[in-house]
């Protein structure tokens, strides 16, 4: 319980620091959004001072000193109010993020889970058959796929499988011809659109999990308790799982939690290459359009997700490793 409370306090402190940094960074940059927008309108003709004031009000440019602004900002963050997007005006930042987030969570989240699960399982297999042909094949393929530059893999997949062979769509997350909702044709279209980006994510990341798990397993196999487990005449599957894999998995859990945190950041490259309407694609558009409120909102969401993922990793660790359970209190 004390462990939990301590973790929650650390979580809240980290969040506060992240939010504050997110507040400060745009204020350190020169210029202001109204001038940016004005510059854009100036290309088409001049603007009256009253129009400028109207834009300032519309975008919610802050008044008062920095501390008042900070206080107001904190209040708005708590209410998920990140202002209005310049690019997608009149939609709010919250609205844009809420519409991009499910796509990213679905695509990158599921791909990360598959990659971790499959990679870890194959790593266990490779380690238990180390030196044999199955190990050789798995290790060689992993080392190979692990070194693919992702953009190359993505572009090659789009070009060959979508552009040349027409097996998969070139872009998007679903076929606009079908109405959105939980019915068969729409779901099939989502899976069809998501398959290629998901496959490239899995291919490019599975090797890391496989090799990492294999190495941890081989280190653990040399532990005395594994030798003793064999001497005890335990069934080999039981030894492989309870004595070797469970212990070898612990260092990988942290990496997995971090990966889950970065899911929201999206695979920026994946979403750009496949024009997938997720957070990564949204961030890309925000950057090229200098849409600061949108960027700020996305950064905040990413940071919060990484911090939360770490928090849950710490809690999950407790389930898997008894040595952490009574940490500091025993």
């Amino acid at each position: 319980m004390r462990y939990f409370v301590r973790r929650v306090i650390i979580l809240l402190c980290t969040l506060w620091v992240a939010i504050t940094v997110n507040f400060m960074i745009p204020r350190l940059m020169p210029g202001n959004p109204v001038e940016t927008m004005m510059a854009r309108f100036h290309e088409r003709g001049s603007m009256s001072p009253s129009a400028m004031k109207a834009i300032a009000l519309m975008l919610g440019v802050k008044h008062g000193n920095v501390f008042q602004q900070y206080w107001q900002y904190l209040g708005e963050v708590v209410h998920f109010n990140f202002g209005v997007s310049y690019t997608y005006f009149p939609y709010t930042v919250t609205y844009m993020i809420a519409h991009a987030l499910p796509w990213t969570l679905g695509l990158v989240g599921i791909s990360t889970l598959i990659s971790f699960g499959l990679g870890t399982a194959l790593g266990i297999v490779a380690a238990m058959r180390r030196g044999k042909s199955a190990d050789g094949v798995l290790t060689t393929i992993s080392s190979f796929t692990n070194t693919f530059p992702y953009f190359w893999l993505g572009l090659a997949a789009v070009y060959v499988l979508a552009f040349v062979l027409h097996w998969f769509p070139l872009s998007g997350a679903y076929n606009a011809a079908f109405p959105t909702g939980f019915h068969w044709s729409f779901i099939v279209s989502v899976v069809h659109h998501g398959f290629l980006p998901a496959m490239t994510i899995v291919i490019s990341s599975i090797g890391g999990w496989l090799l990492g798990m294999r190495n941890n397993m081989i280190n653990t196999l040399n532990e005395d308790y594994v030798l003793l487990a064999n001497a005890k005449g335990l069934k080999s599957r039981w030894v492989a799982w309870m004595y070797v894999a469970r212990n070898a998995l612990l260092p990988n859990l942290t990496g997995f939690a971090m990966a889950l945190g970065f899911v929201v950041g999206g695979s920026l490259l994946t979403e750009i290459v496949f024009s997938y309407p997720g957070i990564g694609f949204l961030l890309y558009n925000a950057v090229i359009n200098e849409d600061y409120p949108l960027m700020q909102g996305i950064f905040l969401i990413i940071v919060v997700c990484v911090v939360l993922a770490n928090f849950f990793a710490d809690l999950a660790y407790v389930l898997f490793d008894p040595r952490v359970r009574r940490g500091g209190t025993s």
Partner: protein
Amino acid sequence: MSTLLSVEDLSIDYGRRNPVHAVRNVSLSIEEDEFVGLVGESGCGKSTLGFAIARLERPPAQIVGGRIHIGGNDWMSMDAESMRKARWETVSVVLQSGMNALNPIMTIGAQFRDVMEQHGHRGRRAIEERAVEVLDLVQIRPEVLRRYPHELSGGMKQRIAIALSLVLRPKLVIMDEPTTALDMVVQRQILENLKALRHQQSFAMLFISHDLGLVLELVDRVVVMYAGEIIEEQSSRGLLKHAWHPYTRALMDSLPDPENPKGSYQGIPGSPPDLHVIPEACMYAPRCPLVQESCRTSTPSLETFQDVQSRCPVTRQEVVDGVGVRS
């Protein structure tokens, strides 16, 4: 008494190309309920031999010849599943580092339970009772069954490892330096535990150690290894009276003498030989104070004389001539 373990001509190499001949043509037998000590300095092959007897040798170690029979079973040609079932019920082991011999993510109780369940014991209650019983033999309270290894001290973990080795009533327990990693006080407690154990449960023991003094206190018979071979074997009582082989004598001289606590101990000059190429000579000749010309040109064999097996022809001749015998 009948023979429980018989090892014949066992040889173990490390590696395939340019192998180290770590154990060569070792023959050894242990009677039921007998405690046998296996001593020698680091690298003499005593642990390699112990692990091979339990069939726990790990690559690059491999058995290259010989036979092992335990309780009538051919321990070299069993199929994997009968081997698995025979493990721990026939031969159990206690490792040097008891602290690392327990799985950190399982409770002590779970580590008693898995071995008992997978050897056909049923009923949580009965299993726990048996665990409590063996823990009691090593004076550990039953509460530890709910604990994890990291919550216990090194001495406790080693005693738990000993209790664990007895849980299936094995015929033979192989202990590889079970007290070496512990401090003197705990070492003493565990030795007393072990001495008391044989009155409570019947089992034979192969006790591997570099500490001849400790071994003499515990076992009935001592086997001395040097550079991968047995060089002397006799009863503890006989050895205390008279060590035959010059190496065993040197080991005895390196022990502290309780009657002369301030006396100087004798080290053994030189270091053990390289085991890649085995010379046609006595392995101990380069360090031996009694070395003769014939020792350097022919390999002496292990011969039995007056219930003592020794490899040294020089000291055997002394006994025949009636000199150098301490009475």
